[in-house]
């Protein structure tokens, strides 16, 4: 087989792994959109915030240390502990749940029944607020996230494929782990929404508020639950991206990549978010590999958006979204 073919295949594999990460972010969007009809612009910033919090907690950073030092003239920076990753993640989950509760209590409880565009604007405000809060709490420097995930080329895969095909595939260990975790997360989410009482209540709330109230569902509780879940998904996405490229502001921009993913997959479909993420991940890598050299490269920046545009023209509800039927 020609070398070219293997290179292409390798690019596709790597795209699959990137796609998994896109899918993770998109999943957070879908969860909130399905249950409350809110398009959460802050999802990407939530991932950034979660990753920052995780690093901060693990490194024993004092939150708001700059603010405290500037106000009281003190010199506190560190608590002087280093927590194991598991404990750090648990505490961060706690922070995200607290955050979900505050967001529901302070913002969205007062916006019940408002137009979607108003809710959307609120999430834009929320995104900028969180960005500032994150900087204020943990500082704006680029952080490295060490949660003990394996890094570097998978040597076993490299050697095995070299022996079999005469070409060693380069696949990052982290990407493999990310894929496994993403699959587990999706399986857990599907089990949750299909089989548990809270999951059923969540689907009911997404469908009709009045009816949900009349069967004894506490709307506020469900919304806090949904935001907590989205926060948890954001944490997972934040950890994966943070581990591969450092915890920094650009992390919140991956949320923008989730938009074309959602247009492909449909805003209301969990499988859609996953398939959409994979298509975009593989598509942009392959496109870069095949077409990139002809047009001078850097196609990864726009490929996803062009694909989304094409979808908007021919299938506006996405691959898996609810069909839009207008009765005339």
């Amino acid at each position, binding site marked *: 087989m020609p070398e070219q073919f293997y290179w292409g295949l390798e690019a596709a594999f790597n795209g699959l792994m990137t796609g998994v990460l896109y899918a993770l972010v998109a999943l957070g969007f879908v969860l909130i959109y399905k249950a409350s009809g809110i398009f959460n612009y802050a999802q990407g910033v939530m991932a950034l915030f979660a990753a920052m919090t995780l690093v901060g907690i693990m490194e024993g950073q004092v939150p708001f240390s700059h603010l405290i030092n500037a106000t009281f003239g003190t010199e506190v920076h560190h608590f002087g502990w280093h927590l194991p990753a598991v404990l750090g993640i648990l505490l961060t989950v706690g922070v995200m749940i607290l955050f979900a509760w505050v967001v529901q209590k302070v913002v969205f409880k007062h916006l019940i029944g408002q137009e979607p565009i108003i809710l959307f604007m609120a999430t834009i405000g929320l995104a900028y607020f969180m960005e500032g809060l994150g900087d204020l709490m943990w500082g704006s420097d680029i952080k490295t996230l060490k949660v003990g995930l394996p890094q570097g080329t998978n040597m076993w895969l490299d050697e095995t494929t070299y022996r079999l095909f005469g070409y060693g595939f380069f696949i990052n260990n982290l990407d493999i782990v990310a894929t496994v975790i993403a699959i587990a997360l999706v399986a857990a989410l599907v*089990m949750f929404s299909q089989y*548990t009482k*809270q999951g*059923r209540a969540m*689907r009911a709330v997404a469908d009709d508020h*009045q009816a949900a109230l009349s069967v*004894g569902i506490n*709307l506020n509780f469900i919304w806090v639950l949904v935001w907590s879940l989205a926060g948890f998904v954001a944490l997972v996405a934040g950890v994966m991206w943070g581990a591969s490229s450092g915890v920094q502001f650009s992390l919140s921009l991956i949320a923008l990549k989730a938009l074309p993913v959602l247009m492909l997959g449909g805003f209301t479909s969990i499988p859609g978010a996953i398939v959409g993420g994979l298509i975009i991940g593989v598509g942009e890598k392959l496109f870069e590999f095949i077409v990139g050299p002809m047009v001078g490269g850097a196609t990864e920046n726009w490929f996803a958006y062009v694909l989304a545009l094409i979808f908007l023209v021919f299938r506006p509800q996405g691959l898996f979204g609810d069909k839009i039927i207008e009765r005339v």
Partner: protein
Amino acid sequence: MNMTAQDDGYITADGRKIGPVMMEMKNITLRFGGVKAITDISFDIREGEIRAIIGPNGAGKSSMLNVISGFYVPQEGEVWYKGAKRPPMKPFQVARQGIARTFQNIALFEGMSVLDNVMTGRLNYMKTNMFQQGLWFGKAQREEVENRESVEKIIDFLEIQSIRKTPVSRLPYGLKKRVELARALAAEPTLLLLDEPMAGMNVEEKEDMSRFILDVNDEFGTTIALIEHDMGVVMDLSDRVVVMDYGKKIGDGSPDEVRNNQDVIDAYLGVAHD
């Protein structure tokens, strides 16, 4: 029929036993801004009876039902339920106390199947935790099977077996009303509130619905309070009737008493209000 709050009930002409007062509305006044939807209304609902609230359009019937189910909070007055004064409550808390309802404009989960819709009525009967449920673990499995059985019974009872798996959005109006009733019944309510259960139905559908209402009351002993436009239907169904007009109570008693009440006749036939 002369009844006081203390007595233990009575036996109806067709031999059904009506118990003591279960729910009592005391001097309820409900305002929307400057508009009075309900003015100083008191009435009670007895255990096991079918209680109707009737009145012309805009009389405040639906508002009354919304007060009972907690969707509206009255500015004045007290709601007594099972012998205790009810503190201000959210609708979901009222539902958890055993008061189920249907809506005038049908509030179903359109995206779900009939079975899933009716199953939501059982949500508050599920006590195992989400990990057990998610993993379909011993106790959770038993619980699910039990709840499913009781739901199937209700589906049989209301004769909607053939549409169990159909998405609700595809059903015709009359069947949607029946699914909504099924969901309310799945919660095994002590008090069932029906907001115009027969609105927009044809004669045949109305007869079916009347039969179901009577059967529910008869077989499960469920207390029912219903709002209805159609005078004829109400008179046949109910044990006692409250008549409302312009937010005020103008009559209360057995169908016969109400039928011969001059105020009620005026309200329905139209007499100039002074």
